[in-house]
């Protein structure tokens, strides 16, 4: 017959101009996790920035909620190849959190409840590029998506946007976090398709 059905071979993936290379568009919000989902009572939540000299700046949940918040709409790109466009978040800019922190560190290690870590250069957290977000799509951030609060660094692959964040260690030298130590790229720019070490 010469007619080849296009209906087989798996779910068709939507091709959208403007997606980073190798990505496909999704409209749901896949949950990826490397371990049990921690349930953090708000009265035990704390976010601490530790400088390279050991100085600490810390907020409990009430203090954190009192900080000026921003509403942002951003595209997110997971290294497992899904992208989600126009996601809306509310959170505190890292510019605000780092405003009164004295440091000359060029690198940071993001820490989470449950032990997850990921490294992000300092300049990628500043100038309106990153937030500690506690609302998604107008609702409190669910534990499966990183609630009570997660990092959102949308210009890097989403494994850098650590769920359940509880701190930031400022560092003079770059060091690998959880996935970077296991083979993923140290920086993770989706537009340069920096998925694995050596990409």
């Amino acid at each position, binding site marked *: 017959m010469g007619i080849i059905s296009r209906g087989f071979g798996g779910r068709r993936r939507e091709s959208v101009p403007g997606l980073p290379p190798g990505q496909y568009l999704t409209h749901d919000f896949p949950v990826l996790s*490397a371990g049990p989902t921690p349930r953090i009572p708000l009265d035990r939540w704390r976010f601490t920035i530790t400088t390279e000299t050991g100085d600490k700046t810390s907020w409990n949940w009430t203090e954190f909620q009192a900080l000026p918040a921003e509403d942002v709409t951003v595209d997110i790109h997971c290294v497992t190849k899904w992208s989600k466009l126009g996601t809306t978040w509310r959170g505190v800019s890292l510019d605000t959190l780092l405003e009164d922190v004295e440091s000359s560190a060029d690198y940071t290690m993001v820490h989470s409840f449950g032990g997850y870590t990921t490294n992000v250069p300092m300049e990628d957290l500043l100038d309106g590029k990153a937030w500690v977000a506690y609302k998604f799509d107008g609702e409190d951030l669910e534990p499966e998506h990183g609630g009570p609060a997660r990092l959102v660094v949308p210009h890097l692959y989403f494994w850098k946007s650590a769920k359940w964040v509880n701190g930031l260690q400022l560092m003079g030298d770059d060091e690998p976090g959880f996935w970077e130590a296991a*083979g993923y790229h140290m920086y993770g720019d989706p537009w340069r398709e920096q998925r694995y070490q050596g990409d």
Partner: protein
Amino acid sequence: MPLDGNAMAGDLREIFAVDVTAARYMCAGCTHTDAVGTLMLWHQSPGLVARCPNCEDVVIRVVRAPDRVFLDLRGSVRLEVPLEGS
């Protein structure tokens, strides 16, 4: 929900000539020891993450690139691999 470590068999068979899921690990966190197949496996993530069922520390991580497989064993003090015919 995690699977058990037996679900790593396919990926590990590409690297090792033996069935590593039958090997015994010793957890670097708590020294618990059991078969690799009994580890708790998180697979809905950028890689496979196998955790100790006793202390939940990460014992094995497997990351698949198109042309490479990364195997991170820093959470395992040792692997005890049974030899066939012995």
